């Protein structure tokens, strides 16, 4: 029994340590920083839109290197943003991919939130999936979310909610009533990234389907 408990906590520490190189700081506001994660090894960073406001964003990697970041796309409606830094990374976040017909997460399963609450770097909180649902964005889109009892605070925004396998199941985005964390489901982020990188938007009509629209949208955002 004690061995099991020891293995369990060891595994927990390893799971979190394995993700930590993919966790970044996003400095997008004058007074506070948010979190983000390396989404692709070519320098693509995923974060919340609301951590970007009023200054040219910078991204600090886990190894301490700091980069000026280009804004690839901001989506205020679903509160996600994609940044690019001019470097390659060794690691990347992996999103959970549920088997067909299965839910992405189960209520009660273990989750870990990684971020920088109140500016405290690389802070981990643990909890479970407390509930799941959908909310309607301002434009009427339905977005799947996860609620968690893992403690979140300002500075967690844009950071990952990981499952026990160390995969991203959500992007920590909001705090409700002080003790309830809300994360946008990872699938929403994946669709967002695919849409930004792979499928041209209506306004990018001059581009061929499949062509990367990152620079085009970059021009639009700035």
């Amino acid at each position: 029994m004690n061995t099991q408990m020891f293995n369990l906590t060891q595994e927990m520490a390893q799971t979190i340590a394995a993700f930590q190189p993919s966790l970044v700081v996003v400095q997008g506001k004058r007074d506070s920083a948010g979190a983000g994660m390396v989404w692709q090894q070519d320098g693509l960073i995923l974060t919340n839109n609301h951590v970007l406001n009023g200054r040219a964003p910078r991204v600090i990697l886990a190894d301490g290197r700091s980069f000026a970041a280009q804004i690839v796309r901001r989506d205020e409606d679903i509160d996600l943003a994609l940044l690019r830094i001019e470097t390659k990374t060794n690691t990347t976040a992996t999103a959970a991919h549920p088997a067909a017909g299965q839910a992405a997460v189960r209520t009660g399963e273990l989750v870990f939130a990684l971020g920088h609450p109140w500016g405290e770097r690389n802070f981990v909180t643990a909890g479970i999936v407390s509930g799941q649902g959908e909310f309607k964005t301002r434009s009427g889109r339905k977005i799947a979310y996860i609620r968690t009892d893992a403690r979140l605070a300002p500075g967690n925004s844009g950071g990952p909610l990981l499952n026990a396998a160390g995969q991203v199941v959500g992007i920590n985005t909001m705090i409700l009533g002080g003790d309830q964390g809300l994360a946008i489901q990872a699938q929403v982020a994946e669709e967002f990234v695919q849409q930004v990188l792979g499928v041209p938007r209506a306004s990018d009509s001059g581009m061929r389907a499949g062509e990367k629209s990152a620079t085009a949208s970059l021009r639009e955002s700035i």
Partner: protein
Amino acid sequence: MSENLNPLMAFSNALADAASKAGDATVLVSARRRMPASGVHYAPGLVLTANHTIEREEGIPVLFGSGAQTTASLVGRDPASDLAVLRLEQAAGPLIGRSAQDGRVGQLVLSLGRPSEGGIEASLGVISSVGGPVRMHGGGLLERFLRTDTIPYPGFSGGPLVDAEGLVLGINTSGLTPGSSLTIPASLAWSVAETLAQHGKVRRGFLGVRSQPVELPASARQALGREQASGLLLVGVDEGSPAAQGGLMLGDVLVGLAGQTVEDPDALLGMLSGSLVGASTAVEILRGGQPLTLSVVVGERK
């Protein structure tokens, strides 16, 4: 489940299984104006819930995790433990399993609730303390309660506290301690529920005395023939009360009831359970330093 899960993933799966299993027997109970609360299907057709969330007695909508919906009516309520029992018009879902053991400090637990149609909700934590007895508002005595560091989300009152296997350890309520939540242990909750299901209320015994604990001198202990440290000095005996009718007098020191020693007022309150009501009960006192046993017919606290 695949065999190659690491211990963390296996544990995570087990927690989700526990939430799902106990969640199937955790129901939404809509008997108040503001948001619904939760309840537990504990016996066929019967739901245990938190008394303070029950603002009406008939036609109470109850929703199971399967989506099955039925209505329930109030069978009985016990404000002292903040428990109420409802009877379902149709038995509509699985029963919750009960843990064979009492909750222990440090034990991993889940608090569950079903305050909305959006599925079961859960919070993870540990049992922080085991407390009691504590005297509640209105004179009732709560023999034992659990505290946890799980988050009592809105609408969790009446929902279960379960162990890592999804077996119930108690019923959560925020109705007894404003601003926080505590858990009525399953052993106590089930016994209250049984009484409520049979009698519609929990009867509590009444003597009609006011008392204060006093140390017993060595001579008194000798007279009693046992090492009892304290007793209850009667500083008031209500006129016409069961105690007065049984011959208890001001200045008597109550040292035993129904064959059990009484050393403090909470112990006395705890012993005056409903089963003694109406029964001729032996009350052991010291009068003038001499032991004496009187017979008192215990009344019912209104």
